[in-house]
């Protein structure tokens, strides 16, 4: 296991570097919330989900929805690393005639299971997928990564009610709880606490973890998989901009690209685990 965890840590490092390089190349994008989700995404794609990059439309595949679609550099990077498309293509982020749109497009990018970007919609879409898995007696699972800012959207709570009603235990929601949104902290913009109690009140199974600790992430995935007749949400406490000292917990890095110099510094820090 120790070796596996080391592999995941190394993979997350690669993922972070790819995120920063592609956002720098695009001169725009959202690095902060992509970096905070690096361990979650790595754990999903390398330790949890059943997917085949050679057959991205496999009807039996597990589904992933990046509801916080603006952080797509983390998704594009993992998809490229898994082999859905060439790594060099990451340099085409947000460029005309490219396949890597500013927010995910399921018809343009291999491996993207749902269009996303308008916040608050991914959980509902995931419920649709999970309900159809049950209807068709298929064993695939649906994973939805939510931002904390998007929990401001009313639709999230419509979906939360519905998931409990339909006893959706084949869907896992994960909140990337980095406590920052575009205009400031959650507390300044729209307080979310008590967040775990909110989900509990909506009849969800709630697991709270450190979203940068692979042992905790994988443990939570296991517990979620064992839960029946109830939807599970993992509240993953994370740090926005994680891995780059000058980006960590800085609201300014929500939607700003690093310049070449900043990129060099950031890549060095990630490599050396500073």
């Amino acid at each position, binding site marked *: 296991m120790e070796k596996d965890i080391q592999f995941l840590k190394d993979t997350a490092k690669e993922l972070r570097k790819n995120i920063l390089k592609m956002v720098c190349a695009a001169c725009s994008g959202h690095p902060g919330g992509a970096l905070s989700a690096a361990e979650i995404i790595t754990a999903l794609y390398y330790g949890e989900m059943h997917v085949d990059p050679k057959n991205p439309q496999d*009807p039996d595949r597990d589904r992933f929805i990046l509801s916080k679609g603006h952080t797509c550099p983390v998704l594009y990077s993992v998809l490229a690393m898994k082999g859905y498309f060439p790594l060099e293509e990451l340099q085409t982020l947000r460029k005309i005639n490219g396949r890597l749109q500013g927010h995910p*497009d*399921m*018809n343009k990018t291999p491996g993207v*299971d*749902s*269009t996303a*970007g*308008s916040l608050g*919609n991914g959980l*509902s*879409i*995931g*419920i*649709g*997928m*999970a*309900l*159809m*898995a049950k*209807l*068709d007696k298929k064993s695939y699972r649906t994973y939805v990564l939510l931002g904390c800012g998007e929990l401001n959207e*009313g*639709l999230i709570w*419509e*979906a939360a*009610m*519905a998931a409990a*009603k*339909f006893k959706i235990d084949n869907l896992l929601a994960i909140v990337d709880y980095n406590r920052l949104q575009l205009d400031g902290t959650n507390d300044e913009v729209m307080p979310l606490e008590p967040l775990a109690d909110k989900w509990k009140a909506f009849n969800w199974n709630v697991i709270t973890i450190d979203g940068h600790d692979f042992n905790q992430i994988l443990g939570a995935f296991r517990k979620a998989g064992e839960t029946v007749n109830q939807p599970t949400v993992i509240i993953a406490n994370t740090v926005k901009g994680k891995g780059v000292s000058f980006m960590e917990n800085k609201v300014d890095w929500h939607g700003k690209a690093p310049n070449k110099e900043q990129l060099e510094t950031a890549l060095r820090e990630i490599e050396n685990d500073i």
Partner: protein
Amino acid sequence: MTYKTGDWIPTRDAYGEALCELGEKNKKVVVFEADISKSTRTNLFGKKFPERYFNVGVAEQNEMAIAAGAAMCGKISFVSTYAVFASMRACEQVRTFVAYPHLNVKICPSHGGITPANDGVTHQGTEDLGIMRTIPGMTVLMPADANATKKLLFAAAEWDGPVYLRLTRDSVPIIYDEKTDFTIGKGILLREGKDVTIIALGDMVSKALDAANLLSTEEISAEVIDMHTIKPLDGDIILNSVKKTRTVVTVEDHQVECGLGGAVSEFLGENYPVPVRRIGFRNTFAESGEYELLLEKYGMSVKHITAGCLNSIKMKGKIR
């Protein structure tokens, strides 16, 4: 289920019945409802196919996005609610998560136009066709009667991509027999004439036919087209008609902007400019009241259509 010419039936009733027939034939059909199944008539489908029926409560955005998720898994999702809610409350879900990915979500709202009459403005959808028509890749339909509803519903299920199919709360007369064929994107020439072309859709088709009858007593020959599909618009049937009549009156239970009148005017402006009169709401909300009285008050009765035709014919002399 077929319906007898001359009977009066709300098209939502035909929808509920046809949906059950469709569900029998096509196992990919799943239905989503937002707590008004007794009104949208999807309760019939729910009783017959409970495993393929999902009532999400009073939450139309959630309903639309869940339907999109189901369509992403290869299903044909039917979404029922009222036209105001489908087109406005859930507008962004339709645009970004149904139309942008070009999914097989068929939005079939009841209470189109002022057919919810006495319910008042909150429940009267008079902007929905325009909203839907503006969304890229959306197909927009309104059947004129129960037989047309059944045929177009089956066509919508076969159609590749999203469809908006608008229904009526109140009864409309059956004008088609069950043998009439309907093709999405092909209007129907209901009555031939040479002086003016009346293009109508939905509940206003029977009013257009009544107007044509009335005009014939004044020796005016009106052609009547049922434009059940306003997007994609059937340009051929319009051109063939206006080359003969050289003037058009559009009739819709909707604002005159962006709906049928808008679509026809845009098409003619670009392809064959002739005078066009648009019958419909003119920058106004309606109010509670009986359907026929509302049509009268807001300038959309048979009398108003005939006056529009006379006006339109007069305009011919002023242009060219």
